[in-house]
């Protein structure tokens, strides 16, 4: 269960060693866009050695290079191990996500892994957005990340802070994930110092059904966690709902509001999330 996922460049030892100290639920170690071509191999080696020696006690996600690059095979060969949990696949589509599933199966078998590596497809092309419902249902896929920067470039529209241009992509990704029972993960907010804008952006995506958000700066993590966690008031209300549901038959009311099955289910989910995030 995730609320916040922090991107960390794979070629920066200082950032790798401090990645675990923030409150991010998952760390995305990046080998793709933040790494220059000349550093692709050194970053891969650094990440491999780092993960052998240090445990961050977080979900470890590796963003490998895309399948249209010459680097992805070596990335997967080197880094798929029990030291990671998930592969973030850039420029994902139905075809390459299926292909990644097959590659992971082979590597898991070859390396005798004790776990199943999950996949988070990164949806950043119009063509893959249009097949996102099918991608979400694929084997191993347990979350989908919307990549708004590349997507809006592909759409030929300006990326704005308000995000009206990604309203439909967000809604589509969110519904696909809800349908598949997996997490919709929102695109990063790129202004590292605009915390009010970040919070508004989080609320917008949460309202559409997103369960988590990625971040390119550690200073964003606490705000993301706050928005994507149940609030104190929500927890208190959920406890009240569940307490009354135990003793009531059928629908009942709290503060003149009718409480029926969907509200009770939401209350259960709130408590489940609150427990998972250590809030109660």
């Amino acid at each position, binding site marked *: 269960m995730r609320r916040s996922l922090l991107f960390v460049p794979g070629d920066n030892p200082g950032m790798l060693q*401090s990645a675990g100290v923030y409150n991010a639920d998952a760390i995305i170690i990046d080998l793709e866009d933040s790494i220059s071509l000349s550093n692709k191999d050194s970053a891969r080696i650094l990440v491999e050695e780092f993960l052998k020696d*240090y445990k961050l006690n977080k979900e470890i996600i590796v963003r490998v290079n895309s399948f249209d690059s010459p680097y992805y095979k070596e990335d997967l060969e080197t880094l798929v191990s029990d030291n990671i949990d998930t592969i973030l696949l850039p420029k994902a589509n139905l075809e390459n996500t299926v292909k990644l599933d097959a590659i992971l199966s082979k590597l898991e078998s070859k390396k005798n892994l004790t776990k199943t590596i999950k996949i988070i497809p990164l949806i950043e092309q119009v063509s893959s957005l249009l097949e996102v419902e099918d991608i979400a249902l694929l084997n191993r896929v347990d979350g989908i990340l919307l990549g708004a920067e590349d997507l809006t470039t592909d759409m030929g529209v300006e990326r704005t802070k308000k995000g009206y241009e990604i309203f439909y992509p967000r809604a589509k990704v969110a519904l696909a994930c809800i349908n598949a029972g997996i997490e919709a993960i929102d695109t990063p907010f790129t202004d590292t110092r605009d915390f009010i804008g970040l919070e508004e952006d989080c609320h917008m995506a949460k309202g559409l059904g997103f369960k988590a958000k990625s971040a390119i700066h*550690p*200073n964003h993590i*606490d705000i993301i966690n706050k928005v994507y966690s149940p609030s104190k008031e929500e927890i208190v209300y959920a406890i009240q709902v569940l307490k009354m549901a135990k003793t009531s038959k059928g629908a009942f009311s709290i503060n003149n509001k009718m409480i029926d099955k969907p509200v009770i289910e939401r209350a259960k989910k709130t408590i489940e999330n609150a427990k998972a995030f250590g809030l109660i």
Partner: protein
Amino acid sequence: MKNSLGRKVPNGYPLFEASNAFEKKKRVLISEVKTKNKDKLVNSYAEVFEKLEIKDGMTLSFHHHLRNGDQVLNACMEEVKRRDLKNLTIAASAIFPNNEILVELIKNKNVTNIYTNYLNGPVAEAISHGELEGMLIMQTHGGRARAIEAGELKIDVAFIATPAATKSGGGSGVDGKNPCGVLGYPIPDMLYAKKKVVVTDSLVDKLTITDIKHEYIDYVLKVDSIGDSKGIVSGTTQVTFDPIGLKIAKDATHLLYELGVIKDGFSMQTGAGGTSLAVASFVREKMIKEKIKGKMASGGITSYFVSMLEEGLIEEIRDVQCFDLEAIRSYKENEKHYLMSASKYANPYDNPVVNDLSFMILGATEIDLDFNVNVTTSSNGVIMGGSGGHSDAAYGAEIALVVAKTMNARIPIIKKAVTTITTPGSDIDCLVTERGIAINPKRKDLLEKLKNSKLKIVSIEELMEETYKFTREPKPLELKSKVVGLVEYRDGTIIDSLYQV
């Protein structure tokens, strides 16, 4: 000989026993020295040196309110060089990189002994390399004031850089062309030095505020410039944006709140570093959210405390040194923004303001498993700082809280034993790092309050081991046997020695 912390001290010097050992002694006060001189105005350093008969072996004092923009100490040293005076002792409350001229004078034996509270740059490096013939004594802000009033540090002539002065010798730090704010550090020099010279580049008829009293001043030296305003007040002290610094600051604020010290009537000091200012900023947010009103902020003052005063979050500011232009403006305009002398700030015998602090945020270059803190030398043994008010506030504050990253590049901050002890671990209560919070086991009361805390409370040993997983254990530092300086605790005893590198 070894002191109570096991640190070697050269024979003949008083050994540090405990931070409260001063209570066993009585305050010693020499008489204040007022002047009878009426004709005070002079026009050159040469004239001052002539009139005061400054000669070999004398002790000259300076303050550091002009920081890295100071030109008064430098101009005096030019005069010393021109006259080739020998065996002088310099008692400067701090020495900065722009005071590099001292290096040449140290090598020439013009200057053979130095007293200071903070020292970095070329002078620090020269002394660490054994260039000073006599001894460097690193005092605390409170300790310097105590030593001066007790006559232990005898000052022959105090040169008091003053942004604006009257012909009769009154002085202010808020007027003139190079304002620096309050003049808290030279007050003991003004009271007890044998002779006092106000050095100014702005002669005025009237002062907005009078920090330097004319009756103590023998001469007023008018010069073209006392300093470079860019080096005096940068105006750029800002809350850190570094995510690790911010995490530490947030955790420190949570910790203080959980310990119950952020409450109505509390008092604080935070310093002007980025992480310290972040603590001030988070404390302010907490005060607004929880509707808490504080009593006082003290120490070196920045715009953050000024805002809190103007917002009514605190009742008053006790200021020994302004760090930015907003602090200067506030001191000039706000009657609740008070000057405090170095003595009132931190002298153990002057019922100092540090004793009223609910908490103090401190830094550390190194901290050891006994919570001893080093802010004097770098991990390779070179002098790069000094106590300033560190030891004073650590003793006085109810909670002395150190904020530090567990590693600086690949150098771990926590060590089995620090290179130099600046502040004894008995006075340090909490260490807040990005990887967890360690509470001094001596503070059982704090541990009890935190037993149900969700903060990551660990032992300092665990923090060190976790850091060593990244850095490995550093090899012991090999220093030469020659003692180049002494770290003098606020009561005048020696807490540690500084060795040649």
